[in-house]
């Protein structure tokens, strides 16, 4: 079917070339699978850019190495790639480094909060009560979170209990693991799938103020370096001339805040939109998060 679609798209492209002739080009490079969150986000942003008058295409490169190869071949159209700081580090560990600096960093897409949850039938009243009588507390964690076995060391030091990280391949499996009784609690992104799930009792978030009446992680675990850390997703330029950065930042900001699809996607999930940061603040946040994950 993809072949048929490709033929149809080529024909459409042929007939509409003139229509695109004077529109600014800004492509969305998706360096991940073709149906996860990044795929959905990339397609929404492409639609948003088209709606505000851009000639924008999704270029599916599947991973960082292919993106580099595609650019190196020459002829790549101006655009951007987007991913989280964690993904940036994983790419670098795999030997693929699309460097992020003042010349390539465009702006953040959003910052997503983290949460901690227990099963709603666990009789949770307070964190201190929950850990009382337990020697070991197992925490379901996504395996892409850097930090290894020491991730929860500060929590162990603070409470005198042993917090053990248990790795799951993805958010959905992590939640299934907690609900299936593998672990005592979970540490994950704070999205509708978590705060809207009646089987989960999420008791804190990584926000710097109360969200949905939940106390901050900082107030529960003051010495834990991840207590204010969220998922920081950002746009990184691909073949984008320096004189277009300001225009592209404005366009992406418009999509993030005002697009009829992407705007509600960000606000409904209680994510902090990238427009909340100045470029300097955003780059500083990127670097702080990067250093924290790396070390």
């Amino acid at each position: 079917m993809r072949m048929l679609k490709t033929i149809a798209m080529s024909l459409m492209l042929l007939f509409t070339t003139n229509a695109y002739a004077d529109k600014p080009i800004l492509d969305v490079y998706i360096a991940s699978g073709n149906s996860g969150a990044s795929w959905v986000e990339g397609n929404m942003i492409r639609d948003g850019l088209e709606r505000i008058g851009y000639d924008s295409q999704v270029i599916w490169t599947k991973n960082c190495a292919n993106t580099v190869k595609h650019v190196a071949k020459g002829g790549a159209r101006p655009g951007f790639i987007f991913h989280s700081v964690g993904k940036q580090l994983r790419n670098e560990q795999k030997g693929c480094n699309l460097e992020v600096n003042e010349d390539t960093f465009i702006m953040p897409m959003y910052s997503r909060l983290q949460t901690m949850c227990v099963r709603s039938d666990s009789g949770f009243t307070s964190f201190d009560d929950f850990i009382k009588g337990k020697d070991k507390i197992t925490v379901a964690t996504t395996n892409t979170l850097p930090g290894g076995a020491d991730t929860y060391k500060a929590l162990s030091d603070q409470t005198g209990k042993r917090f053990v990280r248990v790795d799951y391949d993805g958010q959905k499996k992590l939640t299934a693991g907690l609900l299936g009784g593998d672990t005592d609690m979970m540490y994950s992104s704070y999205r509708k799938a978590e705060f809207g799930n009646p089987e989960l009792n999420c008791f804190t978030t990584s926000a710097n103020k109360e969200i949905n009446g939940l106390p901050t992680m900082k107030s529960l675990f003051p010495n834990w370096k991840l207590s204010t850390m969220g998922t920081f997703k950002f746009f990184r330029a691909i073949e984008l001339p320096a004189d277009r950065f300001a225009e592209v930042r404005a366009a992406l900001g418009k999509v993030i805040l005002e697009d009829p699809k992407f705007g509600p996607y960000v606000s409904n999930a209680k994510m902090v939109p990238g427009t909340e940061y100045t470029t300097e603040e955003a780059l500083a946040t990127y670097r702080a998060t990067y250093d924290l994950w790396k070390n």
Partner: protein
Amino acid sequence: MEFLSSDLFYAVAGTFLGFLSGLIPGVGNVVMLLITYPLLIDASLFQMLLFYLAIISSSQFSGSVVATVFGIPGESSSLPAVVEGNRMFNRGVGNFAISNAALGSVCGAFIALAAIYIVLPVSIDLIKNFYNNNWQFAILTLSCLSIIILVGDSVKKNIMVFSIGIFLALIGHHDVPWFVFLPDVFPYEEYPALMSGLPLFPVVVSLYVFPVLLSTYEQFKDFKSEKTYFDNNPLIDHLREFKNNFMSMIRGSVWGCFIGLVPHVGTSISSNLSYAFERKLGIKRGTYHDKGDIKSLVSAETANNGTAMVSLMPLVLLGIPISTSEALLLTFIEANSYVVNFKTTIENGMFNELVLYFIVINIVCFVFSWPLVHYVNLLKKVKMTTFLWLTGLTLVVLVYYIGSMTMEADYYITTMLVLAPLGYLLRKTEPLVLLIAFVLQTKILASATILYQVHFL
């Protein structure tokens, strides 16, 4: 264009292609799934399951036709049709063999469905426990052990092939746990593409399809068939004959429902066991016809189709595949970032919708396979080996095409070519053992890691 992305398209395409895969020996459901992978890239979870269900259901109908008329075993579960069906065909009553096998298949499928609905409410509560990693690990271990022990003729050989599958799947693995990342062993610096692991598609083509096509080619290179299929009996004669075999159909259904849950070999075992049982019963009662026994055939074909539905349940409920084609389907499902379990299939009502399609597909297959069977004689004009060559070439083109979709055509083709000699060496082993190991490696490793972290840290 909208039709191409509709559920109906996947039902129709799956039914047609499954029918085709049953007609061509050596193709089977695994190869058909591979060939049709481009159709699944944009499909939803429902469409992927529907497509698979349509393929496995319709291939049962056409598989028994070819087995009866030409005496060719499309797959191991067709052996009773080859023995009894082909004998009946040779004595001029092949039309009854085909009609009764088709009627038995439909009944077997519906009885299996009824059994599933009776057991489902009770099993849902039990199944929720299976989300516990301890259960998952136990099921995965049992599943792997059963394939190593039950398939083929040598456990030692299976262990070796299984280990090769695990080893290949570990290349580039560095998520969980870190220690399997072996930069000293693999030339990651020279070939950075290896960092993302070996791509499934070329691996399956070289190490599963290539050996299967080679052995099928050897089997059929000198094949010829002289006899012609004909059917001069009215419908009522076929129904009357089926009435005589009603109890054989019931016994076959029971075999199909229970044995369908044996990992990897369920279809083959249920078909052959019900056949052996019915044959023995016939000999004891003096009703067995040594020039083609219709009761044994009906029982085997009913069990065959009953198993097709029952064996899908561990995948639908738990996300655990118990056959090679299911393992491949699960890989495609996960590549599209879908999760398959009772929450995503049963609780949201998807399964009921699938069942509706399943009933319609079986009825359509039954209604259409009867008139279409008259055209089976046309197959004699085509050399079976030509089909095999075409299948192989199509897959090579697809390896290039799927690789080029993510700008990795050279990597995909290189992987296929480098592994092809290994596929040739493995042609006398059970290639499905390697495939299962390759596909399940990530699950086994993740489950073992969780087990270790929860209980031993």
